[in-house]
């Protein structure tokens, strides 16, 4: 039976998750991903969806508009719960079904039991190309925060110069791409060795953490979640409630980061008395100068392609400065950039989306320099400690 409201969905996913965990434990199939609960944290443009009475209809048309060949039987359905939608379709013939919890107006949770291969491909061909919806982008410091919320048990590194370099330039790079998964408590030591030797610092990009998380008051329920930079959570374990709790805490922290960036970063001119005052601040990304040719990576960053989704024609001034009047293809709003080999200054407009700031940070860390940091008014934007978001060690399982 298909869940018709969010409470029923939670119960259904809880039962399936626990059942699947026990079955896997018996068969010792810990690493297979089929049948595991996956949750994708999405960001929906509130200006598009906020006023819509027919959320399923609107979601359906947006996703349908952006769906690429290979996606068939696309359907968006309402449920008895006004904030729960069902999105389904076939991706190259294989069925994918998502339950979308839109109880937060802007940050949606797309739950599925489909295999990673099908679910990832489905979202890539639909949501990732949809102008009204974006992923949540978790930068390195957010992933490190997640790792502190429970018992850290592994990590994945993922660095790829591909999006910013031509094939020829990538081939001549010292390290073109680096992927590594390390499970176990010493995983962090492995990462630190790679980071601190100096050899692979710029490429040691944390892209995934694995954490065992559960309610300390209920030892029987826990989740082992893999949390990825693109907002994907894959849960193994016995408690969907524990998984949902972790997801909600990341959702809350992420939404506060975006809110902070938008409130303080959007540049605007406000009317005061009989004049105007400047408000807002620029976002500065700092990184180690890349081995990549400056003009090449800057040009490709604004080529409209995923993952950056930025449109613009860089106006170069010599070999070490560029100015770009860009447009964010996610929300269709302008952004201005000033770029040097070791930093990018981003100037948001009044309606610019804060998610773009985080998308750029997470993807610069994966494609240019793992150590990229973003500051606003001299403070790290990811170092913002949102209210009530201190590490909660009560959730570490006994």
């Amino acid at each position, binding site marked *: 039976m298909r869940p018709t409201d969010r409470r029923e969905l939670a119960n259904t996913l809880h039962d399936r998750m626990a059942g699947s965990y026990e079955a896997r434990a018996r068969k010792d199939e810990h690493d297979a991903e089929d049948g595991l609960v996956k949750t994708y944290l999405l960001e929906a443009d509130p200006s598009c969806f906020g006023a819509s009475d027919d959320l399923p209809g609107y979601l359906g048309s947006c996703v*349908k*508009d*952006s769906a*690429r060949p290979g996606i068939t039987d696309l359907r968006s359905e309402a449920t008895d719960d006004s904030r729960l939608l069902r999105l389904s379709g076939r991706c190259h013939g294989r069925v994918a079904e998502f339950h979308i919890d839109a109880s937060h107006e802007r940050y949606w949770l797309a739950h599925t039991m489909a295999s990673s291969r099908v679910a990832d491909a489905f979202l890539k061909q639909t949501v990732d*190309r949809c*102008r009204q919806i974006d992923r949540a982008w978790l930068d390195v410091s957010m992933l490190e925060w997640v790792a502190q919320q429970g018992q850290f048990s592994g990590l994945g590194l993922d660095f790829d110069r591909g999006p910013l370099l*031509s094939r020829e330039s990538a081939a001549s790079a010292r390290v073109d791409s680096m992927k590594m998964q390390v499970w176990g408590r010493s995983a962090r030591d492995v990462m630190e060795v790679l980071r601190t030797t100096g050899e692979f610092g710029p490429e040691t990009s944390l892209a995934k953490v694995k954490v065992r998380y559960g309610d300390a008051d209920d030892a029987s329920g826990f989740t082992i979640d893999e949390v990825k930079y693109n907002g994907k959570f894959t849960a193994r374990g016995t408690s969907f409630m524990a998984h949902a709790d972790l997801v909600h805490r990341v959702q809350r922290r992420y939404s506060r980061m975006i809110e902070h960036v938008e409130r303080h970063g959007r*540049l*605007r*001119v406000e*009317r*005061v*008395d*009989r*004049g*105007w*005052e*400047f408000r*807002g*601040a*620029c976002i*500065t990304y700092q990184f180690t100068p890349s081995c990549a040719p400056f*003009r*090449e990576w*800057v*040009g*490709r960053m*604004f*080529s*409209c*392609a*995923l993952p950056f989704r930025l*449109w*613009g*024609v*860089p*106006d*170069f*001034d010599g070999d070490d400065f*560029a*100015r770009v*009047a*860009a*447009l964010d*293809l996610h929300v*269709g*709003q*302008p952004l*201005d950039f*000033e770029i040097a080999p070791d930093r990018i*200054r981003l*100037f948001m*407009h*009044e309606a610019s989306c804060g998610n773009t700031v985080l998308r750029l940070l997470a993807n610069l860390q994966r494609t240019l320099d793992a150590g990229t940091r973003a500051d606003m*008014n*001299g403070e790290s934007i990811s170092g913002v400690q949102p209210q009530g978001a201190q590490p909660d060690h009560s959730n570490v399982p006994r």
Partner: protein
Amino acid sequence: MVCWVEQWFRNSDDSRVKPEILTASPHVRHAIMWEWKSGGNLDQDQLARYLAVRPDDVAQGAFVEPQACETVGPAVVVPDGLGSRCSGVLAQWQMEAPLLELSDTQIRLSVSGFGIPELDDPLQQGLPITRIPISYVPFDREAPDYVVVEHLMRFVLQTMLERRPRLELSSMGGALFRMWPALAPSMRTELEKQMEQLMADLSANELARYLERDKAVQGQVTHVPTWAIIHNPFADPTTDITHAARALRKATRDAVLRHKGGRQLQFRELTGPDDGSVVPDGTPRA
């Protein structure tokens, strides 16, 4: 707060002054007439006219609240490192004005001061300028056409993504300039004229398949220059957004190159399907 950008008024000697920016603060009750100089272009006559401005001139001629301009004076901003050299020039002319040095990261009081601790103290330390992007005033009347083209093309793309049926010249200024209402009326008129000419040029060339001067509106008594979007690839559900955006990017690059070429510069294009940037071949940017 900013009161005006490039608005002229008369000083007590009945001469015209036109500061690049006029700011006034009800808190410190002082108005400042800002001039940006490259160093070599300090103008003795211009500075003399600024020094002859009295509070009444600002209150009446520039419509500033009298409490915000009980005192008034100029401030000259020069590139980082040129403060003492420019100060020597002012000394020769027997003139005194606050000189500020502007670097990539901050603006700092170099020589003299305003005589107001609330202004002098932070400016002597240096104020970060990361909040002052060019996008407040992305181009001015002296800007080369290709710079204006970049911003117009972005506005066209934005309009198409919002699936609006037409663009009106009257809404462009407000969309492109955050400080549009603060610009002097004469500056707004000239900028609109420049944008209209370039829109006509673009709609006859790189944007010919996308835009058309809206004839229905042209016939009206109140003539507002308007362009109808005759082909919007983003309105078609079957369009690949990335592909359509790249086509507009190529059109932008072509238009920029054409307008740079018109200024007798040579350009080369970077190679690669994803790289639409344009680079001047060893020619300094205007």
